[in-house]
Structures are given as C-alpha cells and as structure tokens.
C-alpha cells in the first residue's frame, strides 16, 4: 500500500494542501501532523475579534472533525515531529513513532520572534501566535491597566486597538522610525499612526525596549533606549515571526535561513517534498519572497495540493492582506516595494479612501481603508496589464469598476 501524503503542520496551508489534493482527485492516504491539540483553526481572529469577544472558540476551526473523516484525512494532533528521515521517507515523532510518506508537505508556519530582553520570562509578558497564546492574553486583558506593546507591526497594532478600546493605557514601542515598517508603505503607516494617537495610544518610534522590570515575578515596567521606564502590567512582544523550517534545514532541503525555498507550485528542490505558507519562500529570479498571509497560505496550499494530485499549475496571484483596527478595515492588494509615486483616492479624513502606488507609471499596489469593494477592484487592476493611470486612480469621478470592465472588453 502507498504511504501517501504526510502534511507537517495542522495549519491553514496544511489543511489547504490536504483539501486541494482531495478535491483535485488524489485518492491516496493523507495524514496531517500538528503539535497543537486543537482542530486546525483560523489565526487571523486571534489578534482581532477573538480578543474583543466578537469571535468565540467554536467559530475558529477551519473544518469540522467530520469533514476530515469524510475525506479520509487523518489528523495526528498534539505531538511534535522531531525529524524528517528523507532516505527512509518517514517523519519521526517526539514519542518515537514514525509516519512514512511517499510525499511530504511542509506547512509548519512561523513562530513569534522573541527578543533577548532581560525579564522576558516574567509573568505578564506575552507573545501572540497560537490559540493558547490568545487565551492567555485574553485572560490577562481583563485586569490590565497599562500595556506596552513591543513592536509596531499589524499584530501589535491590532492588539493595541483592542486594549485601548477596553480602557487600558497603551504604549507601542517600535524600533524603526515608523510603524508597519516591514508590512506597509509610509502613507498608510502615517494614517494608522494618527488614528492610534487619536485614540490615545502612545506611539514611540525609533526606540527599542532594553529591559523588562518585575516585582515578585510579575512585570511592572519596560525600560527602553529613550531612557524612559514605562509602567506596565501587560507586555506584548510582537516583533515579527520566524519561519519554522528547522526540520527542513536538518533534512538538507534548500532553505533561506529557516524558510524553505519553493517554486511557484510549492515544490522544493526535492521532488517528493512540497512546502506552503509562512514556512515557505518562493523563488523569484535570484531572490526569494516570503509572505505571511492567509491569501499566501491558501494559494500556495492549493497549488501544492494540486501537485500531489499530479496537476502542477502556475497561477499568477496578486497578494492581498487585511487588518482590522478599531472600526477600520485596512486592505492591502499587491506589493508596495519599490513604488515611486502614490495618489490618494478620496479623502483620508473621511475614513474611507484608497492609496494607489505606482512604479514607472504602472499600478503595483493599493491600500484601502473601509472600501472593501474598491479593494476587490484594485486586485483586478493590479493584475491587469493595462492597469490604471495615476490621474484616473486619483479621480473619484472615474468609476473603477466601469473602468476595469471597459478595459476587459477592449482586450
């Protein structure tokens, strides 16, 4: 009997690989291995609706237990894999058991980056990646009065928005000179910074935390390079993520640090091994691109699942992403890196607008705030060879959907 597909990581990407493999006609055995005990679950709500009480535990699973049974996808949850034996084609588990495979897919995700700060082991200091992390943070939020968020990326800012809305005093410390320095362009970051300041969040940029101070084992303050000691009974370290590719590195797969290098279909340098999601970096010419997003996990997972079913298909995709902070729905389409011009569509002070980014006159990315319809159109415009001119993008009298339709009709 065939040993089938083993998916390492009960993640978004991992489940998508299994689902796509089945939907694309693969009929062999499928096993998903995950070190957490829960059914594979949604992560985006953990820094958003889960903390504000809008999303409960029951809404989190990606699929019901019955779904996996019905589609003959075996789940091995709550045990970590410790090694991949490529020659023996087996995953070795912490409890000594092995899962043999014909095909292996890495969907091991990423973990929260920790900082080498003295005092990091104090009570009241959190990171946020897993459901267990979110449960701990949620339990602490009720009584928190002063919070310091170390890191001004999306997760830090989403949690900051929930904390300040709940009446907590919040400071965000960001080491670089602006918020969202890795994940968004300056115009959007500037808007987001003003919104947070308007809600009373103290935003401090260009400053690094240096030490966490505690009393009786509990955090009481955060010291930083601006020589200020800020009182805190809750500290969230939200300093980015590190891909969980160590087992792939140890197994000798081509990696960029701990990110597993793949082609556009999720294939690694070994024909029997695939990778998708946060742990994977896609080769693009001489460079590699790693994205941390649901869209990326879903699309790479779909592509890898099709490979398992014998259908390698490359689909160009426009990356997209979203963040919820306060009543703001921030949506990002395309990749903003290297833009040389931007125009604003609408007015930022209306709370509903878009920022259109161009490189050499070509539309490469669009950020929208509370304009979900425009976001969908923007994804198509970014993908369209004809795109849109900066003049038309900035002119609200130009209806974007009609513009796109006319363009498509002309092709």
């Amino acid at each position, binding site marked *: 009997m065939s040993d089938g597909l083993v998916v390492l990581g009960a993640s978004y990407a991992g489940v998508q690989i299994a*689902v796509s493999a089945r*939907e694309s006609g693969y009929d062999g055995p499928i096993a998903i291995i995950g070190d957490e005990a829960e059914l594979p679950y*949604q992560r*985006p*709500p953990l820094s*958003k*609706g889960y903390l504000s009480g809008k999303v409960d535990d*029951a*809404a989190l*699973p*990606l*699929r*019901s237990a*019955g*779904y996996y049974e*019905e*589609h003959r996808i075996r789940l091995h949850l709550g045990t970590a894999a410790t090694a991949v034996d490529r020659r023996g084609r087996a995953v070795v588990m912490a409890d000594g058991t092995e899962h043999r495979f014909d095909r292996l897919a890495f969907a091991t995700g990423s973990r929260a980056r920790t900082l080498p700060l003295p005092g990091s082991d104090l009570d009241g200091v959190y990171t946020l990646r897993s459901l267990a992390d979110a449960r701990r943070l949620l339990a602490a939020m009720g009584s928190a009065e002063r919070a310091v968020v170390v890191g001004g990326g999306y997760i830090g800012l989403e949690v900051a928005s929930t904390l300040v809305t709940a009446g907590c005093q919040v400071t965000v410390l960001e080491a670089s000179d602006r918020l969202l320095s890795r994940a968004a362009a300056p115009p959007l970051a500037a808007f987001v910074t003003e919104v947070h300041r308007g809600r009373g969040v103290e935003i401090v940029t260009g400053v690094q935390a240096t030490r966490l101070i505690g009393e009786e084992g509990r955090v009481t303050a955060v010291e930083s390079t601006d020589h200020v000691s800020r009182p805190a009974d809750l500290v969230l370290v939200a300093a980015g993520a590190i891909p969980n590719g160590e087992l792939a590195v140890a197994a000798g797969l081509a990696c960029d640090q701990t990110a597993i290098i793949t082609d556009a279909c999720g294939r690694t340098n070994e024909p029997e091994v695939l990778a998708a999601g946060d742990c994977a970096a896609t080769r693009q010419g001489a460079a590699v691109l790693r994205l941390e997003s*649901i*869209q990326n996990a*879903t699309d790479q997972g779909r592509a890898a699942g099709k490979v398992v079913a014998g259908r390698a298909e490359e689909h160009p995709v426009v990356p*997209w992403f*979203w963040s*919820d902070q306060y009543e703001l*729905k921030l*949506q990002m389409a395309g990749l903003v890196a290297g833009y040389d011009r931007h125009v604003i569509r609408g007015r930022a002070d209306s709370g509903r607008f878009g920022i259109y980014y161009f490189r050499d006159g070509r539309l490469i990315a669009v950020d929208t705030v*509370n*304009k*979900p*319809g*425009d*976001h*969908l*159109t923007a994804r198509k415009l970014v993908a369209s060879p004809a795109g849109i001119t900066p003049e038309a993008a900035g002119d609200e009298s130009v209806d974007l*959907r009609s513009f796109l339709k006319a363009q498509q009709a002309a092709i």
Partner: protein
Amino acid sequence: MPEVTYVAADGTERKVQVPEGRSVMQGAIQNGVRGIDADCGGVLSCATCHVYVDPDWVDRLEPPSEDEEDMLSNTAAERRDGSRLSCQIEMTEDLDGLRVQIPETQS
C-alpha cells in the same frame, strides 16, 4: 437546529444543519460544501462566499450592510437579485429551510 440547503451550480443539493448564530458560510466550510471558498474566514475581505438566495427567502433576511453591498458589485460570478455574501447571513430558527444556490465560480 436550523437546516440550510446548498444547491451546487450543477443542481446537486446538500442539506446541512447549521447552529444558530453561525453563518451560512460557516455551515458550508465546516461541512465541506464545495463552491464556497471563504478565503478571508468571514470578515468581508474577499467576496468568495457569494451565494444566490432562493427568491422565497430573500426578503426574510436582514438586508446587506453598506460594505457587503459594495462587495456584491465585485463578485467573480455575476450579481443577481438574491446575491449575498454567505458569511453575512447569520442562522436563526426562523431561517430553518433556507435555500441558497452556489455560483459557478468564486474567483
């Protein structure tokens, strides 16, 4: 528990019990009803859970929000009278028997 009938583009019907308070999208995803992608998990970011609500049921639903309206004009399959995003239809006992048709494509 209220029941939803999902009608696939090819006419195949699938009945699913969806707990009150859960969305029509969640009922589909949890039970592997094909044709509803729900890439964003139900936060009005992707428009890939588009359905056509049966004419008998359209007026018995809460009308779409401004954001949902905005997105319904941008779905992959054509918008029709009963077009809704299924993540925005929350199940209640009153909706027992709801019928929705799944479009040909979500992307």
